């Protein structure tokens, strides 16, 4: 009798599912629940010519742009709220070093949903009258067959590999977010392959104690990587807040790059990405003291 398959794998192995030129989908929301350990592994892997489809983003997308990995971006927001309303590489290079297909979040929901249902498009009212149809060839006015003003068809969007962060999973790939799921279930279901990094690995019995909490079922998930604090410097629901000091360090280094003081950003990348070999090395670079200061009570 064959044993059930474990999908637990290292972040390095997991991101080897991604090829040059792929469309990757990134979950989370702005500065929360971002799969940063996987993103840093992807940067070290040196993949190129990626199309990035992301939920509202911050350092996740900005870091990929900073390393020249992004050809096209489909994302409704890049910023870190009050910590930094704009992020340096996105705001300086959008439309210049990479193409932008401008979307709004509501329509992106329907674009993912259309892919999941294998529909060519769904209808959205959000972009009507805005500049989005001029900025995105996947938004087109169409006649409303039932009468009334034209509506917008938003085309299905296909993803090759999804990168997500969640609270826990079992070895078979049953994933539980234990909080908001953002666009993660839509991105996962619109993707051919799904990689999820989790704070902790739990038993299949524990998953079965709370099956209603399972946000992504086994079978949908191709790889689970165990990366405690892997959303850092973004927040992780139930685990820790965003690291404001780290965000400022990143943004300052990025800004210095555009002022022609390139060293600071190179140093940042060396310290936190290229100069470490894995997530444990990253956590060493950040330091245990810092991580322990990010408790939820302080928020």
């Amino acid at each position, binding site marked *: 009798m064959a044993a059930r398959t474990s999908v637990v794998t290292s972040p390095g192995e997991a991101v080897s599912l991604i090829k040059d030129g792929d469309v990757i989908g990134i979950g989370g*929301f*702005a*500065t*929360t*629940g971002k799969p940063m350990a996987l993103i840093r592994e992807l940067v070290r892997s040196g993949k190129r010519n990626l199309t990035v489809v992301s*939920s*509202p983003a911050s350092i996740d997308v900005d870091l990929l742009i900073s390393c020249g990995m992004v050809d096209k971006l489909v*994302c*409704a*927001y*890049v*910023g870190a*709220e*009050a*910590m930094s*309303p*704009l992020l340096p590489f*996105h*705001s300086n290079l*959008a*439309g*210049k070093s990479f193409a*932008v297909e*401008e979307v*709004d*979040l*509501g*329509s992106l*929901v329907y674009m993912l*949903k259309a892919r999941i249902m294998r529909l060519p498009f769904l209808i*959205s*009212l*959000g*972009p*009507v*009258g*805005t*500049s*989005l149809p001029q*900025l995105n060839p996947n938004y087109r006015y169409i006649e*409303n067959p039932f009468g009334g*003003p*034209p*509506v917008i068809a938003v085309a299905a969007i296909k993803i090759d590999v999804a990168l997500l962060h969640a609270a826990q999973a079992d070895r078979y790939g049953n994933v539980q977010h234990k*909080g*908001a*799921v*953002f*666009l993660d279930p*839509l991105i996962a279901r619109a993707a051919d392959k799904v990689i999820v990094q989790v704070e902790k690995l739990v038993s299949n019995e524990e998953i079965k104690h709370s099956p209603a909490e399972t946000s992504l079922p086994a079978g949908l998930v191709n790889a689970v990587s165990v990366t405690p604090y892997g959303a850092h410097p973004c*927040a992780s*629901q*139930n*685990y820790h*807040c*965003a690291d404001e000091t780290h965000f400022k360090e990143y943004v300052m280094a990025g800004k210095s790059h555009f002022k022609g003081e390139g060293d600071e950003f190179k140093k940042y990348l060396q310290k936190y990405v290229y100069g470490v070999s894995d997530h444990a090395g990253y956590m060493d670079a950040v330091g245990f003291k810092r991580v322990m200061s990010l408790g*939820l*009570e*302080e*928020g």
Partner: protein
Amino acid sequence: MEATAREKMAIFIAGQIKNGDYISLGANLPVPAAGVLLANLTHAPDVMINVLNYLVNLSDIDVFNDLTQVTNPTALKWAEGIMSMEEQFSGISRMDLCFTGALQVDRYGNTNLIGVGKDPSNLKVRGPGSVGTSTVMATVKKYFIFLSSHSPRSFVEQCDFISAVGWGEGGKDARAKLGLPGGGPEYVITPKAILDFHEESKQMRIRYLFAPSTVEEVQANTGFSLPVHNEVAPVPEPDPELLEILRARVDPKGFLRQ
């Protein structure tokens, strides 16, 4: 200490909220967030607040710690419910009030979060993006536009791009002509003034002034001709008791006093 402009804006917003309203807090809008929380702690205990994907009610909370990071996962500890993004966007027609910021706004309340410049591949200022505003502002019952400064750079004759439609090309049927079901923008709130829209033309006009701003000063800082409401008036000085609650329970870190 006298109320700051940010505190007065928050207190004005709180005053617009009715008990039982369903309200969404957008990203990076700490002043409107303060107004909503103040209302929930005082006259509107049944307000249902949508923060990120969470539904929260804060009427029995002692202190709200961080206004500046709405996606802070601490909000989860107050959550009474969680919606998927799909449920959230499909249910905006039930929402009573929400807020949007803008890089640019025109006389009809059309807003731009995309960027400043004519050529999308070479923008002078690249904005954060439209977030959910296109879909939310199309459908929500009403919304307020919030700007943290009032200048001709943000109040423009024509937005370089439109990410959320307000009153389109003007006229009270502008939104119906486009098929947008929501009620459109009601107020534009800045540190200098509160602006509303003429009932028929839907053209922006000065409704209230934050002392010491004057009509002339507000007009001089607006990049289009800005009429004045017949009953233009100063924003009333905030009730000292409300101000105290705002400072002690909504904004203990003093963000609004900066």
